[in-house]
């Protein structure tokens, strides 16, 4: 985090305080608190069932927490409790200032309409009404995520898995959000495609100064993308710190186990 020159960067973008979620008697997420700063990438790692995805849904206001709260600094600089936003405001935030990259692109894309329309949907939702400009912007974004612009009128169902995932990223970034949530963005892709996607995401995140919260079980993804790591187990955050520090010198036994479970290259 080098660019701390702007005074805004001193203020946290997203603040979680004592977040908890119970599914009936099962505590899926317990007492999670942290602050995310503009331009910072946070990875949430842990095995399946550790509460990562629940936490991501709590943070992105898709689930209501059982306890605690999430606050977000709006574009006007005011930190606001997400639970107090009206549904219209929340949905507006979700399609302008936020992005959400799903593990399965079919969830985040409209598979039946063309790639261009997929990228443009958010623009039209915020009132863009000039076809030529919309299309130019869509082409630019397809180019940025390394999709051949000649395929702008093809539906994503004709795309490969890696292309779909890149299209989903373009669709989310077109309104220049400040915060992107990613749920296992490289899951289900083969290794070379994963590497290309990670490379692309790393460039975009640094170019655009995006803050991101990446949920992953893949420590390699965390190492490549994130500045900070939170390790979760049984719904609790058991270790947190700078990525290199946590992955190279894990303190908790569970983190040590996670790190040592990676096959040496």
């Amino acid at each position, binding site marked *: 985090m080098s660019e701390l020159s702007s005074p805004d960067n001193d203020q946290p973008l997203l603040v979680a305080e004592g977040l908890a979620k119970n599914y009936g008697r099962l505590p899926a997420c317990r007492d999670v608190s942290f602050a995310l700063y503009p331009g910072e990438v946070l990875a949430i790692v842990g095995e399946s069932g550790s509460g990562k995805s629940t936490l991501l849904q709590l943070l992105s206001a898709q689930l209501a927490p059982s306890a605690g709260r999430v606050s977000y600094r709006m574009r006007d600089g005011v930190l606001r409790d997400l639970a107090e936003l009206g549904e219209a405001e929340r949905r507006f935030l979700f399609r302008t200032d936020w992005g959400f990259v799903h593990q399965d692109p079919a969830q985040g894309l*409209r598979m039946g309409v063309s790639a261009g329309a997929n990228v443009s949907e958010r623009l*039209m939702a915020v009132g863009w009404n000039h076809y030529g400009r*919309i299309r130019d912007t869509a082409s630019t974004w397809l180019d940025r995520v390394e999709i051949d612009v000649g395929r702008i009128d093809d539906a994503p169902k004709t795309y490969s898995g890696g292309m779909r995932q890149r299209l989903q990223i373009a669709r989310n970034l077109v309104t220049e959000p400040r915060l992107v949530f990613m749920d296992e963005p490289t899951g289900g892709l083969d290794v070379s495609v994963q590497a290309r996607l990670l490379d692309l995401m790393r460039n975009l995140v640094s170019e655009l100064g995006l803050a991101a919260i990446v949920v992953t079980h893949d420590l390699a993804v965390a190492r490549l993308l994130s500045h900070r790591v939170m390790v979760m187990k049984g719904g609790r955050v058991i270790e947190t710190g700078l990525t290199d520090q946590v992955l190279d010198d894990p303190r908790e036994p569970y983190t040590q186990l996670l790190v040592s479970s990676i096959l040496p290259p």
Partner: protein
Amino acid sequence: MNAPAYNFAYLDEQTKRMIRRAILKAIAIPGYQVPFASREMPMPYGWGTGGVQVTAAILGPDDVLKVIDQGSDDTTNAISIRKFFGKTAGVATTTSTTDATVIQTRHRIPEATLHAGQVMVYQVPIPEPLRFLEPRETETRRMHALAEYGLMHVKLYEDIARFGHIATAYAYPVKVNARYVMDPSPTPKFDNPKMDNCAALQLFGAGREKRIYAIPPYTTVVSLDFEDHPFTRYRFNAPCALCGADNSYLDEIVTDDKGGRMFVCSDTDFCEQRQAAGHHGTESAAPHKEKAHV
């Protein structure tokens, strides 16, 4: 049994009351789809069960009913619905647009300007304009509630991307009273401008989907478009072969198997009035004669 076989206009009074309440709510919120407890009618879905229920609910003994199907007064659907109300309500029926007080229609708005006091009743197959883009009803209702209409432009975008222009020719989405996006039923987009600031009350009934919506008189109705691809009307570039009209919506009629075709007004009443007033087209009116096409 001395009791009449049917209540006035077929439906029982409680049902009419329920439908009228839905209609009143629809008029109060222009373009909003009001759910109602649609009844089984003695005709199949797709034949205007929604429109018939709306008509039955608003019809009074003094009303004069006109029914059109694709602009025509003499097709099966129009005749059977007209007869239905002639029989069950005993109301006067007409084919004249100006004389009618209630006009039930499938897929057209008459060419003659509607006047205050008239009611248009549209038969609607699919009331939800967002349906083919967003299959979840819960989601589309939420989108209407929050006025999130970006998705509607996705459809128009797709048209331009694929065909170079907005190729949607019917059921062209409109925004009513600067709030709700509405499907004007499958009328040709040629008719869309007639809905804007119309003197008549416009009611829409979807029987299978159980929705009623409305445009009160003198309400703004704007067809959606892009700045660089504005809304345009469409009509075949020809005069009517029977009455010579060059401003009416035309049907293309195939006359033989050698490529012969003629264009005639889709609104039969409008065409007949013009012919009675002495206008003629190239294939002027009765008696019908075969024309040799070489």
